[in-house]
């Protein structure tokens, strides 16, 4: 404040939501979804398969981003929910429920399962939390492997697949996958734009201050963990539906965490656009290196390490720095008196998690 200026209470400061882009984003999103919805009519089985893989990874990535980028919970064990979601579908299918109906139920089941699992790990911080989630996932896998009715250690195919032609089956799988992804992204966006986003930012900035302001820190974190459980469970259920077979070493593999974490990190942690970009990169890598097996994970890993060390905010962060674009605005703008005067130079607040 320059000396000789009037006190702040006499000056005009305004705080507005990032509203200008929302209408554009909402409309744009609908258009994008509509475009994606007609894919099954245009593209062949291989492309559709790839898209479904992309849906799985994007859902997982947006959940991991919510956990690590916004709530500060670095989980290396989300594969527990991927596996639980897949096995829930298997279980329900064994009991004669259609696998498509089973999917949302499986997701809900994972949300419920997340509560006792959260209780086990909630008091741990950062590194300990990460390891605990990893052990938890391994333990869940070992427990499930004890059930012969679920295929024990070798797994089992879904016994009651729908009696549809393969093209229709693929299309249905694709549309369910699209629905899951859109729902996941929309949920994360709306949550972060609402009260939870503010709460998480407050906790991230200063946990003690947040707590003494009445913020229920534990509840907020648990909510995020449960939502991530639902999301990852839905992804796992989608995996089961698309593969028609559930094997423990595949669905409980820590590789899922690697893929979702790397997608988020490369795309840009702490932004909603980041996971989308990261998943795109992941898909491109997967396609170009698919015949080279382990290579895509090696490259993905190296790129992720490089990004984390060099371009901390990922590819979207770079785009943001240069283009100042926000597809999913969750922030606020602060208009200083000077900015109100000239209608330029507003200051961005609370728009990023990191």
């Amino acid at each position, binding site marked *: 404040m320059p000396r000789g200026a009037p006190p702040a209470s006499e000056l005009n400061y305004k705080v507005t939501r990032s509203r200008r882009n929302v209408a554009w984003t909402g409309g744009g999103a609908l258009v994008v979804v509509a475009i994606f919805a007609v894919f099954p009519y245009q593209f062949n089985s291989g492309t559709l398969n790839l898209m479904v893989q992309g849906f799985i990874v994007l859902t997982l990535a947006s959940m991991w981003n919510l956990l690590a980028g916004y709530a500060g919970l*670095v989980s*290396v064990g989300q594969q527990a929910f991927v596996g639980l979601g897949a096995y829930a579908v298997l279980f329900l299918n064994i009991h004669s429920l259609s696998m498509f109906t089973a999917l949302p139920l499986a997701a809900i089941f994972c949300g419920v399962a997340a509560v006792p699992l959260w209780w*086990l790990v909630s008091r741990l911080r950062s590194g300990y939390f990460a390891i605990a989630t990893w052990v938890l996932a391994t*333990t869940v896998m070992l427990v499930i492997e004890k059930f012969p009715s679920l295929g024990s250690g070798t797994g089992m195919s879904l016994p009651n697949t729908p009696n549809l032609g393969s093209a229709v089956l693929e299309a249905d799988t694709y549309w369910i996958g699209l629905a899951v992804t859109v729902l996941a992204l929309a949920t994360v966006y709306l949550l972060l734009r609402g009260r939870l986003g503010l709460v998480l930012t407050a906790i991230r900035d200063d946990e003690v201050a947040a707590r003494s302001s009445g913020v229920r820190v534990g509840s907020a974190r648990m909510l995020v963990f449960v939502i991530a459980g639902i999301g990852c469970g839905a992804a796992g259920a989608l995996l089961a539906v698309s593969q028609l077979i559930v094997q423990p070493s595949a669905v409980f593999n*820590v590789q899922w965490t690697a893929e979702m974490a790397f997608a988020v990190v490369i795309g840009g942690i702490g932004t909603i656009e980041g996971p989308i970009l990261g998943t795109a990169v992941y898909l491109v890598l997967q396609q170009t290196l698919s015949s080279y097996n382990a290579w895509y994970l*090696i490259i993905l890993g190296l790129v992720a*390490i490089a990004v*984390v*060390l060099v371009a*901390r905010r990922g590819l979207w962060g770079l785009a943001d720095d240069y283009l100042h674009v926000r597809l999913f605005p969750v922030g606020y703008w602060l208009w200083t008196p000077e900015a109100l005067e000239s209608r330029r130079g507003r200051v961005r607040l609370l728009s990023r998690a990191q």
Partner: protein
Amino acid sequence: MAWVSAIIQGILIGGLYALFACGLSLMFGVMKVINLAHGDLAVVGGYIAVGVIAVTHLPVLLSFLIVVPLMAILGYVLQRTILQAALNRSILTTLLVTFGLSVVIENGLLQFINAGSHSLGVGNSIITGSFKISSQLQIAYLLLLIFGVAVVVLLGLQYFLSRSKYGRMIRAVADDREAAQLSGIDYRHVFGIAAAIAFGTVALGGIAYGMYSQFSPTTGTNTIVLYAFAAVVIGGLGSLWGTLLGGIVLGVAQQIGAQISASDQLLAGYIVFLAVLVVRPQGLVARGART
């Protein structure tokens, strides 16, 4: 009798787990790095031993003479470059970087070495035999040797940390990095030494594991890293001998589980691990909460 044998086996295998764990504990105690790639480093050590033996025809028992210093140097270099860069940013960054390293190492091994299992075997040495206490109770010499090596390593580490100049500097840096700087200590160099020790000891563990059992590129992330963390957490962070205690508890829990059912061996260990995390995260030995 089977139970007695199982428990003794569990205690002795605790030595192996302590070898895995002491480096992890050191890296966290000194520079607050949780090295998610720790297990893969043991496997790397094992594969380097395979290569060294193939090239030099050294007996298995002596392979560590080359592997351990090599891994120690690798640890110093990795710490001074990538890990230090990650540390300069944030804890999240170090977790991500070490996780990334784990994935790269594991898949690198899968890519360049076939995915099958390798065993180092024990060669033509006396340790193929067992120590016969009774007709039903036998203890493999190899297990005794591994336990003995673990104890020697821990003793050596303890002596190094409490008596030597560098050990003192490591403790000082772990206590208060800035105050150590004010006394002329370059903490980056000290971090490097700690990492070198960690990489060296875990490589030793990898060789021991290769002699006792078999490993493959995925063994690091599948089991070893979890064993190491289990031993550290159960025993208590910051305590060297705690890692031995933790290793023993883990080993015994696993053997008891195996007695119940062959498939419950791993599960029993992890359940104990989780129980400790929930009930007493600071571990059995360490005092005060350390999360």
